[in-house]
């Protein structure tokens, strides 16, 4: 979601990260069994941006998404699948674990702290994939 927000320009300043995270549709309410379902975040420059949760299998799901797109490709539109799991911080991982233990308030706090810690890494990752974004101090 951070990556999507950065790319679409929904997130421009680091101090907006917490508000951005809290404003996400379904934040704190998405059930574990829904992980993997693509979520539409928005459109920017005629590009549709989706997010997909991957649990612990980031490289496997990344491979599967690319392969599946080749299998069902019905048009010639360009697609890009970017794995941002490497930017995940220990804070966010702790938040995810707490969410599984139904400790929502603590989980949401950890996830917000984690998001602030990850935003620079995610921005650099996007730039490495040729997706320009501006994240200001």
């Amino acid at each position: 979601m951070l990556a999507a927000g950065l790319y679409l320009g929904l997130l421009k300043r680091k101090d907006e990260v917490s508000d951005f995270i809290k404003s996400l549709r379904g934040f704190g309410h998405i059930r574990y069994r829904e992980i993997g379902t693509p979520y539409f975040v928005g459109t920017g420059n005629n590009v549709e941006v989706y997010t997909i949760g991957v649990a612990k299998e980031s490289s496997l799901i990344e491979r599967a998404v690319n392969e599946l797109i080749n299998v069902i490709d019905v048009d010639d539109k360009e697609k890009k699948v970017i794995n941002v799991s490497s930017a995940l911080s220990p804070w966010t991982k702790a938040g995810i674990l707490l969410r599984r233990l139904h400790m929502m308030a603590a989980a949401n706090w950890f996830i917000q702290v984690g998001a602030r810690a990850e935003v620079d890494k995610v921005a650099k990752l996007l730039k490495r994939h040729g997706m320009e974004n501006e994240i200001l101090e």
Partner: protein
Amino acid sequence: MKIIYHCYGGAHSSITAASIHLGWLPTDRVPSTEELVSLPYFDRPVGKDHGNIRFMGKDEFKNEVYVTGRRNASRVFENMAYGVSQIYGLGSNDVRLVSVMPYVNWKMMLGGFTSRKLMITSIGRPIILAGVKYSYWQIVTLVQRVKTTICL
């Protein structure tokens, strides 16, 4: 329609199911060891192949049959696959995911681990073959159920 048989490693049970679907394996008897070993990709994929969706062939109704291994991420994989299909305007009448894991027995797990993870094929493969033959009729029933539902 695109039918994707999936299991843990995409090396044994999903290959067997896809082969039954395509008519490469019999449905009136348990296949021989030679018939199973000669199947494409049978006991061949390794960890780095997980997630690759391999085309096996087209059945008599021109449905495309694929196989893949997705380790323990069955739900994540299915959510992703149906979701991505919907993004492209395809529904459950266009893409069908079939998990073969309910028919995987301990012999297939042990043999698969020994052969694919530890790469001791000489020990693992006979155990896998025994496991596949043990569950063969259940996998045949699964495939027949899939074929019946997609033809309705």
